[in-house]
């Protein structure tokens, strides 16, 4: 930079001044003023030259300081004569003795770790051939046996014909950086290995779960069907031989076989929820809730339930799954208002920033808030089987569906004053 500036300055200042003065001075050669002017011009030129040198040496000094601060050595290689000159630091970095500071490129190459020589040589050859940049990282085996990592950078300089005649550059010790990088990549590799092994573990667990649910669906159903089937056949074919107590006992067998069957079906439904692929779309919740209410009504046609559906914001989610969640919530609302001669159920919804929230409220038997924490657990029931039928899976299914959508579900209730269940769904991007 400093060189460029002074080169640019010279033709503008000194040489430009002298010819101009010369033209002016020739007719006035005997004139004292001319002599003074000429002397002045010479003085001016010397002054500029001195300043230029001072500046150059100052910038060299600065460069030297900067290189020292960066612990960089410099080198210069005359490619044609194969002669290397390098700074003391550059030589020290390679563990070269002072008398080895100058020499051919082979002196340097001799210090490069044998395993890295080919790579360094290729980088140098490429820079020489292209007249471009050189850069490589390599190991150096110092005379005391230690191994250090070096980074060499440089640039080729070409003659008018485009032939590389010289390369100049820097060298620095990057062992610490290298060590840190290696530690980091070892850490990363270890982390990746652990993630892979955990993933494999999870996949194994998943497959075991799949196999389990397959075997539940297959192998557990058959004996239950056999129990209910043969008990039925016994009841039908031998009715005459059975006294009322025998028939009552058979009825208990049948009832429990059928309950076991429902449990298995519900469990399978729950396990399928986790595997089922989700298809997210925009859903008109007003239409979906109306459909579901209609279905639930048909299941209990004799009931007098006043269902109010507010204007609901649209949802973004899997239609089949959300339908199932709503079916369970509304079926529960119908079920737990059964003691009411005239029951009322209300579905409301609200849009909040980033989410939509839907609430199903009923005026049924409600529940004690001290059990609220158990509401969404599998097989948790807050009412006896005689009061309200069920396997205790319905709300667990709702929770699983809402969680898969990235939402949350909550339940509130008071004994005999009704219950309200709310779930949120993240607002859709589309």
């Amino acid at each position, binding site marked *: 930079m400093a060189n460029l500036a002074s080169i640019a300055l010279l033709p503008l200042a000194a040489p430009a001044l002298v010819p101009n003065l010369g033209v002016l001075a020739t007719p006035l050669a005997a004139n004292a003023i001319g002599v003074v002017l000429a002397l002045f011009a010479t003085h001016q030129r010397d002054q500029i030259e001195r300043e230029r040198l001072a500046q150059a040496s100052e910038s060299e000094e600065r460069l030297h300081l900067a290189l020292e601060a960066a612990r960089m050595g410099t080198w210069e290689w005359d490619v044609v004569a194969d002669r290397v000159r390098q700074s003391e630091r550059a030589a020290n970095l390679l563990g070269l003795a002072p008398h080895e500071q100058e020499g051919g490129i082979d002196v340097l190459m001799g210090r490069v770790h044998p395993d890295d020589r080919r790579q360094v040589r290729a980088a140098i050859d490429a820079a020489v051939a292209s007249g471009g940049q050189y850069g490589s990282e390599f190991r150096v085996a110092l005379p005391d046996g230690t191994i250090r990592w070096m980074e060499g950078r440089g640039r080729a300089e070409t003659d008018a014909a485009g032939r590389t005649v010289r390369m100049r550059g820097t060298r620095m010790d990057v062992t610490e950086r290298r060590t840190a990088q290696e530690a980091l990549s070892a850490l990363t590799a270890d982390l990746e290995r652990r993630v892979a092994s955990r993933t494999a573990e999870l996949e194994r667990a998943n497959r075991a779960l799949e196999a389990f649910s397959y075997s539940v669906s297959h192998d557990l159903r058959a004996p239950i069907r056999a129990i209910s*089937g043969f008990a039925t056949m016994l009841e039908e074919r031998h009715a005459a031989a059975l006294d009322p107590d025998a028939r009552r006992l058979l009825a208990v067998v049948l009832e429990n*076989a059928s309950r*076991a069957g429902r449990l298995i079906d519900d469990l399978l439904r729950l396990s399928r929820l986790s595997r089922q692929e989700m298809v997210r779309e925009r859903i008109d919740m007003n239409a979906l809730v109306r459909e579901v209410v209609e279905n639930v009504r048909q299941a209990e046609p004799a009931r007098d339930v006043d269902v109010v559906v507010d204007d609901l914001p649209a949802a973004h989610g899997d239609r089949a799954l959300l339908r199932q969640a709503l079916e369970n919530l509304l079926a529960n609302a119908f079920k737990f208002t059964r003691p009411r001669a005239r029951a009322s159920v209300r579905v409301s919804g609200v849009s909040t920033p980033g989410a939509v929230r839907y609430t199903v409220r009923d005026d049924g038997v409600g529940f004690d808030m001290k059990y609220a924490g158990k509401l969404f657990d599998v097989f948790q029931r807050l009412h006896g089987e005689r009061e309200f039928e069920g396997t205790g899976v319905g709300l667990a299914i709702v929770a699983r569906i809402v969680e898969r959508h990235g939402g949350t579900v909550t339940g509130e209730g008071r004994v005999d004053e009704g219950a309200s269940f709310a779930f949120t769904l993240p607002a859709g991007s589309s």
Partner: protein
Amino acid sequence: VTIELLVVEDNAADAELIRHALARVPISVPLHVAADGEEALDFVLGRGAWAGRDAARSLRLVLLDLKLPKVHGLDVLREIKSTESTRTIPIVVLTSSRHESDVEAAYRLGANGYVVKPVEFEEFRVAVRQLGSYWLEVNEPAP
């Protein structure tokens, strides 16, 4: 030709429940039970113990379980449906599995129906009776 029915079922209890459910179907049809996939193929294709027998003309329905000893139900289905002389025999899968992959594979291989065995006997009996009455009484078989 007397018409027949084949039940491929390794679970003896289920086989008896099927027999019981079908006993009420008005047309009384001889019912054979094959307890594994190989026996089923022998019966349908006229091989082994059933060599020389032409079942293709008399079989009106095969009720096929999937999880079977020796030869899996889907392989039984594949072989019957890819054999020229037997491919028109109606085969309804009657199984405990409602796995999507099983249902899809069965239809791809040419199953004429897929029924998941209800756990509760009463529902099971209704389902089997409907199957029997549809395929043995309502449906017109291939000539």
